[in-house]
C-alpha cells in the first residue's frame, strides 16, 4: 500500500468518526423534535380527517383516516369563521405594524448616548419581559370601567367611563360634527400588542442603527440635509432589511398568538382570533376533530401568507 493511500484512508477514517460523533451529539435533539413536533404535526392532519371527540378520546385512532371532510365542513360553515378570520388579520397586521413603529420611534429617541440611557434602555424592555399573564391582567385592571386608573382620568376631565375591553363598537364623536363607529375592544387589544412587543422591535432596530456607518450621515450633514431629510433618505432605506425581517417575525408570531387575546378579553367583544377559536372547539365544545381542522387551516393560511410575503415584499439584506 502506498503512503498517500494510507494517509487518505486515515483521513477518511477521521472524517467518518467526526461524522458519527456529530450525529451522536445531535441525536437527542432530533429525537425530541421528531417525537414532539414533526410527528404531532402529521398526526394533526390525520386528526382533522376523523371524527374525534373529547369524551371518547381513548378511541381516537393513531393511524388511518376516516376520510371524512365533516370537520372542515363544520369549521367552515360556522357562523363565526369569517368574522374570526377577519379579526385575526386585522389584529395581526395592525398589531405588528404598531409594535414596529413604536420600536422604531423608541430606537431613534435612544440612539444617541445621554446620561441614564443604559437605565432607560433596561426599563423600556419591561413590557416584553413581564409574564404575559401579569401584563394582561394589569391592563384589564387599569382599563376597568369601575375603578381603573384610565377611567378615573377620563372622568376627571369630564368624560364618562368607557369599558375598553368590553365594547365591541363604540360611537366616537368627531368634534361633534359626526359620529364614527370604531371596534373599541379590538383596537385596545392591538394597542396592547404594540405596547407589549415594541421592545422586541426596539432592540433589533437599535442594533441596526448602531452598526450603521456614520460616514454617510455626516456627508449628508455637510451637504446641509436636515434631520427629517436624513431620516427619510438615509436612515429608513438603510433599515429596510431589518424592518422587513421584523415584520415577518412579528406577523408569524402574532398570527399564532393565543395568550394575549384570551387573557385580555377571552375572545369577547369582537376580538376572537383563530387560536382562541381553536381552543374553543377543543375545550368548549370537546370537538377535537374540528379543533385539529381549524389548526390545519391556520397553518395553511400562514404558510400562504409567508410565501406571498417572500415573493413580493421581502427585502434581502444585501450588506
Amino acid at each position: 500500500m502506498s503512503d498517500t493511500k494510507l494517509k487518505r484512508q486515515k483521513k477518511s477514517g477521521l472524517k467518518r468518526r467526526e461524522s458519527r460523533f456529530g450525529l451522536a451529539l445531535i441525536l437527542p435533539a432530533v429525537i425530541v423534535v421528531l417525537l414532539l413536533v414533526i410527528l404531532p404535526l402529521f398526526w394533526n392532519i390525520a386528526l382533522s380527517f376523523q371524527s374525534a371527540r373529547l369524551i371518547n378520546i381513548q378511541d381516537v385512532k393513531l393511524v388511518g383516516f376516516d376520510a371524512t371532510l365533516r370537520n372542515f365542513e363544520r369549521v367552515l360553515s360556522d357562523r363565526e369563521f369569517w368574522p374570526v378570520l377577519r379579526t385575526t388579520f386585522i389584529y395581526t397586521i395592525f398589531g405588528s405594524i404598531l409594535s414596529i413603529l413604536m420600536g422604531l420611534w423608541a430606537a431613534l429617541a435612544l440612539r444617541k448616548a445621554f446620561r441614564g440611557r443604559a437605565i432607560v434602555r433596561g426599563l423600556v424592555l419591561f413590557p416584553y419581559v413581564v409574564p404575559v399573564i401579569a401584563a394582561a391582567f394589569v391592563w384589564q385592571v387599569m382599563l376597568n370601567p369601575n375603578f381603573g386608573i384610565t377611567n378615573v382620568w377620563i372622568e376627571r376631565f369630564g368624560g364618562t367611563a368607557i369599558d375598553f375591553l368590553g365594547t365591541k363598537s363604540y360611537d366616537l364623536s368627531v368634534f361633534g360634527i359626526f359620529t364614527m363607529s370604531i371596534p373599541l375592544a379590538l383596537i385596545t387589544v392591538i394597542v396592547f400588542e404594540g405596547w407589549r412587543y415594541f421592545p422586541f422591535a426596539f432592540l433589533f432596530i437599535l442594533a441596526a442603527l448602531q452598526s450603521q456607518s456614520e460616514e454617510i450621515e455626516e456627508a449628508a450633514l455637510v451637504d446641509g440635509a436636515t434631520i427629517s431629510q436624513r431620516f427619510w433618505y438615509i436612515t429608513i432605506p438603510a433599515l429596510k432589511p431589518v424592518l422587513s425581517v421584523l415584520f415577518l417575525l412579528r406577523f408569524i408570531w402574532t398570527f399564532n398568538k393565543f395568550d394575549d387575546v384570551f387573557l385580555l378579553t377571552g375572545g369577547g367583544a369582537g376580538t376572537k382570533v383563530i387560536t382562541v377559536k381553536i381552543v374553543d372547539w377543543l375545550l368548549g365544545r370537546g370537538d377535537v376533530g374540528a379543533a385539529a381542522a381549524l389548526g390545519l387551516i391556520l397553518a395553511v393560511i400562514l404558510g400562504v401568507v409567508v410565501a406571498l410575503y417572500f415573493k413580493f415584499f421581502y427585502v434581502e439584506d444585501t450588506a
Partner: protein
Amino acid sequence: MTRSEFEEKLFGVLKWISIVFFTIISLFPLVYMLALSFKPIAELLTNPAQWWPSLEQVFSFETYKAVLRPVGEGGFGFTVFIKNSAIVATVTVITTLAVGILAAYAVARLNFFGKKTISVAIILVYLFPVVVVSIPLFVMFSRIGIRSSLYALMIVYLASTLPVAMYMLRGYFQSIPASLEEAGQVDGLSRMGVIRKITIPLAMPAIAAVGLYVFMIAWNEFLYALLFVLENRDLWTLSLGVAQLDNQEVPKTMLMAGSVIISLPVIFLFFVAEKFLTEGLTAGGVKG
C-alpha cells in the same frame, strides 16, 4: 431660523418627550400593579383615584397572605403553584441545556451527514404555530395517560425551548476560536473531554443567559398548562393559579398580588442578566 435649525430644536425637544413617554408607559403599569396589590379592595372601590397604598397597608401584606394561604384555610394555595412552576421550569432548564449544548456544538463545530438539513429544520420548527402542535400532543398524552402531570409539561417545554437554545448557543460556540479546542486535543483530551473541559467553561456566560431565558419561557407558559393540567388543582403552575384569580368573586387586588408574585422572579433575573439577555434576544430572534 433656517429649516435645519428649526428641526434641530424641534427634534431635540421631541427626543426628550419621547424618552419620558416610553419610560412612563413601560414602568407605570408595573407600579400600578404593585400599588394595587397592597390596597384593600373596599377602599379602592370607594375612591379609585386614591390608588396609592399607605405604608401600613404595605406592611400588613394582607392580600399576599390571602393568596399564599392554603385552600383549606380560605386562601388560594399559591405556595403549591410556586413550587410546581419552580420544579417544571428548573427541570426544563436542565434538560434543554443538556440536549441543546450537545446539538449546538455538533452544528457549530462538526461535519456530519445531513447537518444542514437538520439545523435548518430545527430553526423552522421554531416558527411553527404552537396551537397546531398542541392539539395532537393533547390527544397523544391523554392516550398514553401522562397528560395530567408535571412530566407532560416538562416534555413539551423541552421541545418548545430547544430550538431557541440551540440557535443562541450555536452562535456563541462559533465565536470561540477553534484553535483552543485543537490545543486541548493535542494535550490528549477526548472529543467529549474537549467539550466538557474547554468549550463549556468558555461558553459559560452564554449558557447562563440561555438558561435564564429558558427558565423565563417555562415559568411564563400558559397554553399548555391550561390544556394539560387544568382539571387537577394540585398540578397547577403559577400562570394557571393567577388566571383563576381573574374571576368576578375574587377582588382585583388579589389578582394584582398574584401578578406581582409571578413577575418578581422574572424581573429579578432580568436585572441580574440584562446585558446577556438583550444580546441573546437580538442574536436569537426570540419568540414572544
